[in-house]
């Protein structure tokens, strides 16, 4: 109950911010919410189930290119393109999971990373269709869904909030479900859950697909809402990004990805306004965080007795 009210309060706060934030922060928050969905997908795999993937950029870009290419080459409108893009993320995750989940731990990390790298190179190889490294701007006609122009500031924020709310509530329901408990059991002790009659591979594959669904949705919405689709979103830094968000905010906490995304975004933004050495500032901040809040901010709060608020 406490958890539910906290989550609803966060959503209400985000809605309230829509009316008061100045233009710059308003647009930033729209971006952050979509990125937080990406990180939430990552959190499902990594935070709850313990699958350390470094290939999530592949699922993000599958969603982004899935939606973008359909708009660009087949003239689809935003709604079907977004749906197909989202599913493309899940499909890509299923394919990757089928192979990669035979490994675990650091091997899993490397295998997913290599699949993602192969995906990135494939985007470049088919540069005639995908625009290669340059990518392409999404045509204006393809950025309208049900009469809502996603290129306009207001609808964009609200659609981002809608997506975020759906993802957050889905995440909350998931971790409270039976399957959610099996996920955590898998993280804590795979052998024991196997003995209890669960098929670890099937559970992990399910988790991976769900995670890919989140990442694909984030990619598709990001591309359509901000009007650009490009292969840089398939590069390694975009696989590390959700890991950082999740670890910063708190792995295995539903609200962790949002907090992590907000902090990381503004850390970089403020650092680059006030200094020319923003890389060092960002690196230093990461070190401070990991030294003083190794479980992430919300993870540390949860350990101090806020567990009933932060599932």
């Amino acid at each position, binding site marked *: 109950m406490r958890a539910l009210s906290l989550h609803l309060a966060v959503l209400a706060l985000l809605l309230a911010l829509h009316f*008061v934030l100045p233009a*710059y922060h308003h647009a930033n928050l729209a971006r952050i919410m979509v990125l937080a969905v990406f990180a939430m997908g990552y959190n499902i795999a990594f935070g709850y189930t313990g699958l350390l993937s470094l290939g999530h950029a592949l699922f993000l870009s599958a969603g982004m290119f899935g939606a973008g290419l359909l708009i660009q080459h087949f003239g689809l409108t935003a709604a079907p393109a977004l749906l197909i893009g989202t599913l493309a993320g899940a499909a890509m995750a299923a394919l990757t999971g089928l192979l990669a989940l035979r490994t675990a731990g650091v091997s899993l990390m490397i295998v997913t990373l290599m699949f993602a790298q192969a995906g990135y190179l494939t985007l470049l190889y088919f540069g005639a269709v995908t625009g290669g490294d*340059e990518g392409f701007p999404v045509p204006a006609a393809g950025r309208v869904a049900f009469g809502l122009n996603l290129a306009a500031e207001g609808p964009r924020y609200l659609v981002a909030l809608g997506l975020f709310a759906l993802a957050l509530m889905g995440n909350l329901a998931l971790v409270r479900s039976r399957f959610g408990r099996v996920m955590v059991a898998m993280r804590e002790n795979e052998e024991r859950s196997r003995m209890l009659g669960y098929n670890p591979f099937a559970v992990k594959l399910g988790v991976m697909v769900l995670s890919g669904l989140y990442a694909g949705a984030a990619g598709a919405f990001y591309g359509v809402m901000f009007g*650009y689709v490009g292969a840089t979103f398939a590069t390694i830094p975009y696989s590390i990004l959700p890991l950082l968000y999740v670890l910063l905010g708190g792995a295995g906490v539903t609200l962790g990805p949002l907090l992590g995304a907000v902090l990381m975004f503004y850390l970089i933004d403020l650092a680059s306004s006030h200094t*020319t050495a923003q890389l060092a500032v960002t690196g230093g901040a990461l070190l401070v965080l990991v030294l003083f809040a190794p479980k992430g901010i919300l993870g540390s709060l949860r350990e101090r007795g806020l567990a009933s608020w932060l599932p």
Partner: protein
Amino acid sequence: MTTDLAGLKTNRRTVLGGLAAGGALMLGAAPRFVQAQSSAPIKLGFQLHRTGIGAAYGRWYERTTQAALKLLNDQGGINGRPVEIVFEDDGTDPKRGAEVVEKLTTQAGCDLILGPLFSHVVIGSAPRAGELKVPYLVCSEGYHVASGMLNRWTLQPGITDVRAQVSSMAPWVMQNLGKKVTMVFPDYAFGHDHRDFFTEAVKAQGGEVIAQIAIPPTETSFTRYLPQIPAETEVLYHVMVGPAVLTFVKELGEFYGSGARPQIFGFIDSLEAVDIAAPGLEFLEGTHFWEGHCRVKQADAPEWESTYRAAVGVDDNGASVSDARDVSTYAHMFSCWETLFVIKKGMEASGYQSTADRQKFVEAIEAMTAFDAGLDHVQGAKTFNGKTHQVFGQQFISKVEGGKLMRVHATSIEDGMYPDAVDYTAQSF
């Protein structure tokens, strides 16, 4: 716990609310301030590749722009108002690039934005510039502006695009170096522009591209690709960008050594910000390069050339006056300088007062047709095409003689012209 958390929440909300109100006040106030006092500075935003793969260019783009800004203000600014520039790093990343466009426009309140070089950043950021209706003047040399891919708010008045550069090289290469060409280029869009337009131009000249070797951009060593160069190659055409350029050229030298080799023609991009006298590059002696602006001061350089070099802090060899090992990106960075003076002309022609005049400013630039050479257009005279938003200028071919790039040919502006692919003036704002 409950009270704690509730306290925290209200706290955060108040803080954010306060921030929001403050921000709104600042934003709302800025334009009014400008309108009230026309002597307030004009504020330009510069999207800078300070970090990431474009950093070598970014550093010199910043220095050139600072120098041009100083000159501009010494000459009395624009419309009698001083000019300031806000530099913001985009990490040479399209996602951050779009955010920087937003930040400069809606937070810093800049009148317009200039400066990006790397084409993926330009293409990633231009849609946001179009949505925010802010003029976006790129210094990118990509063919993405004139190809019609972008929008009415995006212009390239400071540097000739790759398509024009490449096409204008072909006749001289065919006549002086050889007809059978092998091309080595990075396997991404910038390289593909080279591949497509040079191959086309070579064909038009009766030559032939016998092999195209596309190098994956993640590569840091190139030795294994070089044996793919056919033995009957007469001209090796190379262009490379990014952090590994020096390795590429060194490995090329190692591959040919002192043995027989074809004529070598490269784009200076392969060696921007790199000292041509660096160890391992001796083999470049006698090879040819495209240059957008001659790095080494030529004997017949116009009188403003020295003023420009002194202002930017570059010596006669194209290196920093304070450190001879710090070589500039000379063939590209003039574009920032020239773009700034085009902005001055555009703002004066449109009677630019405030952000409300942004559309008039774009229309004023579109109406321009030619720029005369001079201290404001240091690279040379140019023709501007208002429909495609693209400028065209002279290109140079230099030969390495005694470790220095000496100009052996200058194209005419017409050599690089091609039919319009777009008419931006027909698009709505």
